[in-house]
């Protein structure tokens, strides 16, 4: 039994922190948003750092309780557990650092810097329209696809878009879907409690096997409902432009097909149009949406309808309930 390994791990973590701090220092630029995000992440690093000091102090008890083997092992394991969590924190911080560095890389180019500034402003204005908390830091970062990373404990939300779309502001409406995920995170419990029982009720009408019903409810709760609600948020913020860009981005030859986390494009389009109709959107706007969708959908060969567990009745009911649940 020796504390040597614990000290070895602590030293290794300290050097990782020092490297990350240096990375963050380099990433910190004149840009206010990047600096603010870096500050919030550096705060996590300093918390870890000061906790490592505490672990070193606790290690000093180990030699004195070596004869009480159970006690020794208990404290040793507790310290080790904390160190593992710090190791994981460092992995996670590094993943976020990668996003920041891509943003800063893009900012080195004057044109991209202007587009990023505009995208930041655009996303801020959408967030304001959503009535989200004002202390939330929303920051745009280029990445391989449209995505988002909520770090709500640090009041930060990173929205991502492909670098190839940075100079295509007409596609930025897709970022509103990512903000829909933020909206969902904030109202998750309420949305799930209100809408999942209705989904379950609908599922029981079309799926006989109880275990299958449970499985589908779980998939709805974990993935599909969040995606549909995010689409509804997006269409309520950006109107038909969102549906149009979703069709472009999805490039979907099989609109009734389910791909893991995302519901089929047919369901997503239906949810948007149903929601807009329920809100009493003007006829002209509804006609545009229906035309945009019809033009695309009529050209696709696929004749399949939506699967039972994601059928039109369920999608319509979700849209209806979202209208009553939402603060949009």
């Amino acid at each position, binding site marked *: 039994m020796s504390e040597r390994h614990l000290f070895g791990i602590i030293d290794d973590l300290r050097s990782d922190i020092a490297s990350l701090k240096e990375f963050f220092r380099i990433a910190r630029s004149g840009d206010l948003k990047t600096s603010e995000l870096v500050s919030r992440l550096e705060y996590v690093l300093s918390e870890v750092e000061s906790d490592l000091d505490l672990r070193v102090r606790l290690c000093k008890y180990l030699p004195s309780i070596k004869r009480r083997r159970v006690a020794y092992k208990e404290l040793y394991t*507790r310290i080790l557990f904390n160190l593992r969590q710090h190791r994981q924190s460092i992995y*996670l911080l590094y993943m976020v650092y990668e996003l920041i560095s891509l943003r800063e890389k893009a900012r080195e180019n004057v044109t991209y810097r202007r587009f990023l500034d505009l995208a930041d402003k655009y996303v801020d204005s959408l967030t304001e329209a959503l009535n989200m908390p004002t202390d939330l830091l929303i920051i745009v970062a280029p990445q391989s696809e449209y995505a988002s990373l909520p770090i709500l404990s640090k009041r930060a939300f990173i929205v991502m878009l492909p670098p190839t779309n940075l100079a295509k502001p007409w596609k930025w409406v897709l970022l509103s879907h990512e903000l829909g995920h933020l909206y969902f995170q904030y109202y998750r419990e309420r949305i799930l409690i209100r809408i999942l029982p209705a989904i379950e009720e609908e599922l029981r009408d079309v799926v006989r096997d109880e275990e299958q019903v449970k499985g589908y409810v779980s998939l709805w709760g974990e993935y599909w409902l969040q995606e549909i609600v995010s689409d509804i948020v997006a269409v309520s913020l950006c109107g038909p432009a969102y549906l149009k860009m979703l069709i472009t981005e999805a490039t979907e030859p099989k609109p009734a097909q389910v791909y893991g986390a995302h519901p089929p494009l047919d369901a997503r389009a239906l949810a948007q149009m149903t929601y807009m109709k329920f809100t009493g959107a003007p006829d002209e706007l509804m006609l545009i949406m229906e035309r945009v969708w019809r033009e695309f959908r009529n050209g696709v060969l696929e004749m399949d309808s939506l699967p039972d567990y994601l059928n039109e009745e369920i999608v319509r009911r979700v849209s209806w309930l979202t209208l009553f649940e939402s603060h949009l």
Partner: protein
Amino acid sequence: MSTRWMLVSEAWNLNEIARKVGDVLTALTLLKFAKIKGLTISEDEEELRKRILAVKPVLRDLLKEIENTIKSSYGPPPLVRALQEEYGYADLKKVQEKLRNVIDALERIGKGDYREDDFEELERLLECIAYEASSRSQELIARAGRY
């Protein structure tokens, strides 16, 4: 949200829970050493109690999650499922009752009323949460890395 970042976000949340609960477990161990096992520990007792009480919001959130799971038809979240397995209860109301008892034990410890049973019960529950949150977070990070 792409699956990769969904995993990272969940991993971040679980890691924070594991970190917080892990720190409380260490403080609890030190307090137990000092007050139950008779070992010499020079940590400030008040400070240790304060660190232990920091887990209360986590336990309250878990209670809320159990309530929500009972109300909705949605399957239990991972930490609640881990507690069901730990105590061997399929009935969530029994898990809820167990959790309430542990919160009572936590409050007694917070007031300086030390009982060996309370330490054991609190440790059992916190270990279950901490290890589940940690291993799930680790698994999610690994999965996110594969995307």
